[in-house]
């Protein structure tokens, strides 16, 4: 329940403010708290969890459980975006191999979820925050990958829908159709035929 101001940046024409606040990577997101920038989304999420620690803790309290959560968030960070890009923006052999790896990655995550309502157990937590934004891209993955995520990973899709019942999630995520339009534009710019 932290109040914040959202500034949309044009990633093809980055603002001076963005370049000043994140000179190393020149990327969004950048959280600016009392004038001080925090870059890298998972670093920012941990920062938020530590500063506003009395509200809805995202990381568990025990060190081993925290390590477990950090491990899986790191896995999601390293794999889901890059493999997803191969599904939506690559062609031919790279696309086919990327799609196979991507499905395996989702299945691994589904296995880790098991029968729990959330990756955080009974409560929505750090790993859920790390993964659920990719749900916005599921439409794009399915359209350009030509497969059904629900058929491959039904429990994962059920989890995503459960998360979307939470206002904090549904209000933060872009609409799936808008993401498909955006990816279609990017594919045209990059010369990828569908």
């Amino acid at each position, binding site marked *: 329940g932290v109040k914040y101001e959202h500034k949309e940046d044009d990633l093809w024409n980055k603002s001076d403010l963005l370049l000043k606040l994140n000179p*190393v*990577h020149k990327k969004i997101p950048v959280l600016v*708290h009392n004038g*001080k920038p*925090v*870059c*890298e989304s998972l*670093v*920012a999420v*941990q*920062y938020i969890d*530590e*500063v506003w620690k009395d509200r809805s803790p995202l990381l568990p309290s025990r*060190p*081993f459980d*925290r*390590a*477990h959560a*950090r*491990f899986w968030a*790191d*896995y999601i960070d390293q794999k889901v975006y890059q493999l997803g890009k191969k599904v939506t923006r690559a062609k031919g052999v790279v696309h086919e191999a990327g799609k196979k790896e991507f499905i395996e990655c989702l299945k*691994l995550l589904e296995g880790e979820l098991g029968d729990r309502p959330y990756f955080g157990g009974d409560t929505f937590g750090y790993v859920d925050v790390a993964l659920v934004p990719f749900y916005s891209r599921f439409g794009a993955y399915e359209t350009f990958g030509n497969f059904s995520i629900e058929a491959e990973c039904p429990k994962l899709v059920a989890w995503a829908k459960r998360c979307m019942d939470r206002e904090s999630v549904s209000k933060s995520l872009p609409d799936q159709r808008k993401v498909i339009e955006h990816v279609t534009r990017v594919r045209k710019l990059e010369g990828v035929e569908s």
Partner: protein
Amino acid sequence: MANEEVKLLGAWASPFSCRVENALKLKGVKYEFIEEDLQNKSPLLLQSNPVHKKIPVLIHNGKPIAESLVIIEYIDETWDGYPILPKDPYERAVARFWAKFLDEKCLPALWKACWCTEEEKEKNVEEALGVLKILENELKNKKFFGGNTINMVDIAANFIGYWFGVVQEALGIKLANAESFPALHNYMNEYVKCSHIKEHLPPREKLVGFFRARVQATSSS
């Protein structure tokens, strides 16, 4: 308070494995080191890290933790003693940012620049110099990434502080000279003098020999 059966699956020549040993020794934790043959991984390793099948893996009272930076934070949270991460949330965020940058951008770029073929050299060296310039800027007016004392970033930067020099020596190359990168060179000098670090590094001659053997193995294959 932590209680104890601590094992580390690692490899003596790996900077990632060494990071974890450094953190454990800083806290004074007793542990059993198990050297893994990376060409023939043990069932224990494959069982403890089925996702990545890589070292290092810390096993504490039977429970495994993988990924060196995750392990280091676990060590800091479990055992008292030397503070590896700062207490202030903003400073922690800054430390995590730099540790991530080292792992995701620096090490791969430097490693590629050292080991790539002649054809790829120009592009890879340019990328490596790019990341080194960023580090040079961050280290200006600082003894260590952590300021006057080392923190998690310096533990993560052992490739910069030590391995990078060793690998270059083994390969007979020099990617970053002292004139262009004075702060980096100063960092490398201070790194191997720092009492919290120098005792935990593998012996230099042995490490140079290890990489020289790798060079010979790749050139004769």
